[in-house]
């Protein structure tokens, strides 16, 4: 039972690990999803489109704090980046077309290099959350970290069974990764104060859907509960 793990007051979060606790620190990983310049920094793609990056930017300090706790606790940290090969051979035609309607599509050259193309300045993870050399970075062409990547193989190779998920955006890549983790038998929890959407309404609606039925595809918790859970995981 996970009854000893505290959850925050005032938020209908589920117990931290809904089904089983990790057997030790080695079994727990923090997944940081797509905290890239193009999604959450001034001058990045979303900003160049004239959209508001304040929501996605606002979670950087909370994620930095969680990263710091995770590093000190010695648990695995895995980062993801959404991006495509320079020849765009992994970019579906409809995905490019939909983004080009905004005037600057995936693969086009903008102020931060070619949009969502691997190796370009805008594709990099924001400096505040830069991965350390020993932290795996998974490059993904889709929304889900599990699609066409080595993410699942990496988790299995490392013996990871439990995931805490943070990053952007709530309604898109975070939700996709949580759902897919569940379907593949991982126990995942999303940290509500460490995820955001471009439109707040979509963040709020997604959190309501994820919280339904006691955490439908895993738990919903927050930074404080995560830090407390780290203290409760031994070995």
């Amino acid at each position: 039972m996970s009854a000893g793990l505290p959850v925050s007051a005032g938020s209908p979060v589920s117990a931290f690990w809904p089904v089983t606790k990790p057997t030790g620190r080695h079994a727990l990983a923090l997944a940081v999803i797509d905290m890239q310049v193009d999604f959450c920094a001034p001058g990045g793609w979303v900003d160049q489109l004239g959209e508001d990056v304040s929501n996605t930017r606002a979670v950087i300090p909370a994620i930095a704090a969680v990263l710091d706790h995770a590093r000190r606790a010695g648990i695995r940290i895995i980062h993801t980046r959404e991006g495509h090969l320079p020849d765009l051979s992994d970019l579906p035609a409809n995905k490019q077309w939909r983004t080009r309607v905004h005037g600057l599509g995936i693969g086009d050259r903008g102020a931060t290099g070619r949009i969502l193309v691997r190796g370009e300045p805008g594709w990099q993870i924001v400096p505040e959350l830069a991965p350390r050399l020993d932290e795996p970075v998974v490059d993904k062409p889709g929304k889900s970290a599990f699609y066409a990547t080595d993410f699942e193989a990496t988790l299995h190779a490392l013996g990871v069974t439990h995931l805490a998920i943070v990053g952007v955006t709530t309604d898109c890549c975070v939700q996709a990764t949580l759902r897919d983790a569940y379907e593949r038998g991982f126990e995942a929890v999303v940290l509500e104060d460490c995820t955001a959407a471009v439109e707040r309404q979509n963040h709020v609606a997604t959190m309501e859907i994820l919280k339904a039925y006691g955490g439908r595809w895993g738990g919903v918790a927050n930074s404080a509960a995560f830090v407390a859970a780290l203290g409760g995981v031994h070995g």
Partner: protein
Amino acid sequence: MAEAPLALPAIAAAPYDYPFDGIWSAADTALLLLGFQEVTVDRLQAHAEVAVARSLVEATRAAGISIITTRASLGHGPLALRRAEAADAPPAVGSAGWDLVAALRPRAGETVIDHVGDEAFHASPLEPLLGSRGIRNLILAGLATDGMVHATMRAANDRGFECLVVSNACRGTTVDRHHAILRITMFGNGLFGTVADVSAILRAVKQYVSG
């Protein structure tokens, strides 16, 4: 000589007309019916959505569009116990109410795919089957909007399929969740595809069938 497939007229949809490049035919399109099983239809009170899906089936059959019906099941183990808590939890294989509702049972020769959980591509033959038939356009209907429909549409979208979700042939676990999922689907000029009412699809398909 086989006849070249006739192009179908574009379907009026939001945020963009379907498909994105205007290229679709009976040969490269499938109707995906997701999780219209007796127990789920009852629990979500989705009888109206079944009737809409039935009209879609009749029109697409007449046009020669592939119909692929999926049947979800609960699976096994601790995650199955959690899955069982949702309003749209799929039934165990062979249990009462596991079967498809009578109105949407496939005809001989139409394909049924069984899978565990919410995502019809996961650990199922759906992707190779679509690939072998040369299908790139998917029209989706099913239960629940926030469960299997959205999970499957996300997976299809990552795989490059061009997706149209039929708004009134899907029902959420609540009305608000249904609308929230459609709003998220349409974000950013169609984050996961585009959305239409059944009437827009019937109009396009009937125009095609009547030549």
